[in-house]
């Protein structure tokens, strides 16, 4: 296996709130090898977006290491950070609020090129913007349009062109298709996969949609309340999910096929508990159908249940500790 492009070690991000410490990301270890895609799935509030932003240091981590090409960028100062910023970009979920409404399409895509001083003349910038618009499938007649004149799919293409403008190696895609209609969603997913193939990009793909994540990812990390509970190759996750939460998530996906309807089959009770000052032990224990007394005693870590398949659950740690 190739060396990972991105690696995190015990990455933590806590937010101070009036009610206590909110554990948004709580000791996440993951690695993404160059040219591959890691899918991060979980429900709202599980810390997946915070994780993505912390890795890019758009949010400062509380503790832990972020390795980019083996270098710990969590310790970088502002100037060092600026020098590698252009290698790491992000595509946001909401194509409506992530684009400046007062800038034209051309200006939005040109801005990162100007900020990173990648081109020397305006002509060169214009050329590059034209190329980018072509790459993401935006007709050149839109160059002087403003974001509000365009539909969601086209706006998302602008967001992608902007991220690509500085020729990054690593892109965090934070729910890039959840705000789009299915037919447009498929167009954008195809575009992202083509770009990865042609430019050798590495993606961290954050989403709550398991069918999308399976489609696009090589490896999947399932998150629950700030922790990664299962990590495995994408195919294997669907063949053999180990963690009870993963199983519940999989059975909750509405599949567009007619099947005998079993009322209540696999529906888990309850809701995600409070991430503020969580109790020790498994965070999922309160909703877990298989929870035992042990689940609330020990803090869990990912263990290798089968080769390349990591899970954090007492069911797989064996009898004795």
């Amino acid at each position: 296996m190739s060396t990972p492009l991105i690696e995190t070690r015990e990455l933590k991000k806590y937010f101070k709130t009036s009610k206590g410490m909110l554990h948004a990301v709580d000791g996440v270890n993951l690695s993404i090898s160059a040219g591959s895609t890691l899918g991060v799935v979980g429900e709202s509030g599980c810390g997946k977006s915070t994780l993505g932003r912390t890795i890019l240091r758009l949010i400062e981590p509380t503790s832990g290491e972020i390795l980019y090409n083996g270098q710990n960028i969590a310790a970088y100062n502002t100037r060092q950070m600026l020098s590698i910023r252009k290698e790491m970009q992000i595509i946001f979920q909401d194509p409506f609020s992530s684009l400046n409404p007062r800038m034209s399409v051309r200006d939005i895509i040109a801005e990162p090129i100007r900020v990173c001083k990648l081109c020397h003349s305006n002509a060169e910038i214009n050329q590059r913007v034209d190329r980018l618009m072509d790459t993401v499938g935006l007709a050149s007649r839109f160059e002087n349009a403003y974001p509000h004149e365009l539909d969601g799919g086209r706006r998302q293409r602008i967001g992608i062109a902007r991220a690509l403008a500085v020729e990054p190696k690593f892109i965090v895609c934070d729910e890039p298709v959840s705000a789009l209609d299915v037919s447009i969603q498929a167009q954008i997913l195809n575009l992202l996969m083509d770009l990865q193939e042609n430019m050798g990009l590495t993606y961290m793909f954050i989403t709550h949609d398991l069918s999308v994540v399976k489609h696009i990812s090589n490896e999947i990390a399932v998150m629950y309340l700030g922790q990664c509970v299962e990590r495995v190759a994408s195919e294997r996750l669907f063949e053999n999910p180990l963690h009870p939460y993963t199983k519940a998530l999989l059975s909750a996906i509405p599949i567009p096929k007619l099947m005998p309807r079993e009322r209540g089959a696999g529906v888990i009770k309850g809701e995600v508990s409070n991430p503020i000052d969580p109790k020790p032990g498994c965070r999922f224990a309160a909703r877990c159908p298989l929870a035992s007394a042990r689940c609330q005693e020990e803090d869990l870590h990912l263990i290798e249940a089968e080769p390349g398949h990591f899970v954090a659950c007492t069911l797989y740690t064996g009898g004795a500790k």
Partner: protein
Amino acid sequence: MEEPILKIQDLHVVYRTDESTVYAVNGLNLELFSGETLGLVGETGAGKTTTALSIMGLLPEKIGKVTEGSIVLDGTDVLSATDADMRLLRGSTVSMIFQDPMTSLNPTIPVGDQIGEVLHLHRRDISRAELAAGVDKILEMVGIPAGRKGDYPHQFSGGMKQRIVIAIALACEPKLLLADEPTTALDVTIQAQVLDMMSELKEKLNTSMVLITHDLGVVAQTCDKVAIMYAGEIIEFGTAEDIFNGEKRHPYTEGLFGSIPDLTKRTRRLSPIEGLMPDPTDLPKGCKFHDRCPNCMEICRTTVPPEVQTESHLIRCHLMAETSEGGAIR
């Protein structure tokens, strides 16, 4: 044969603004019988919500207008009914659940009072004790402890808020429930809980339901009949069996299925529908789907396709008119 609970014939709805006229619904026919669940599927701007608002008589005043057609709801002609009649109908005969549970509740009133309001409006003579008991019963029915009726909406999670919205809609046991994307804003595990509860309550109260959604997965799980909408028209209608397992499908429906990543298969590329929805202020001639359709023929550009009916399955496409000799053209 029994009378349908809802019968819509040739419905046309427009939105008139100073700048332009939006043709939101263009000749929609629909029938729904007691106890049935109909899935109304389509993308943003297909006219799904407009159809529901027309049934409720809640189109935005002065802007939205029904220009043609009729809507008969449980024997009452909705379009000619007075405001007072409609107020009686809403809540008791027909109720609607809106997409966003965060904005459809009043943030300044405890949830128990919001549920009580419906009961009070439809049964003026109800006593305080009866009202309180009624609220408790409805809350328990949607799985919320009655002890929380004094809480305000912000004290509940998204899933719980949607349960409360459903409780309000079902408080007077309506005959028809219009659910406009009821679970789109919710997480999958919560969505599964809410859908499960809705199906159960529907059965218990023998309510008919129109489920508006863009998620074919949700449709497969809950609906008996399916209508696929595109640019204000129903382009395909049939039983769930017809739509999911039928031999023939409308090219647009085909495209919708091709756009969804299949969990059970390994596909590298999706096959999306190229292009975008047509501009509703300037709809194309002929078949409204023609410029995105992979099978577009010359006739599609000029002539509106006929409705081709094969038993329970209706498809509105020239392709079907040509190939299905046995099918009756309406």
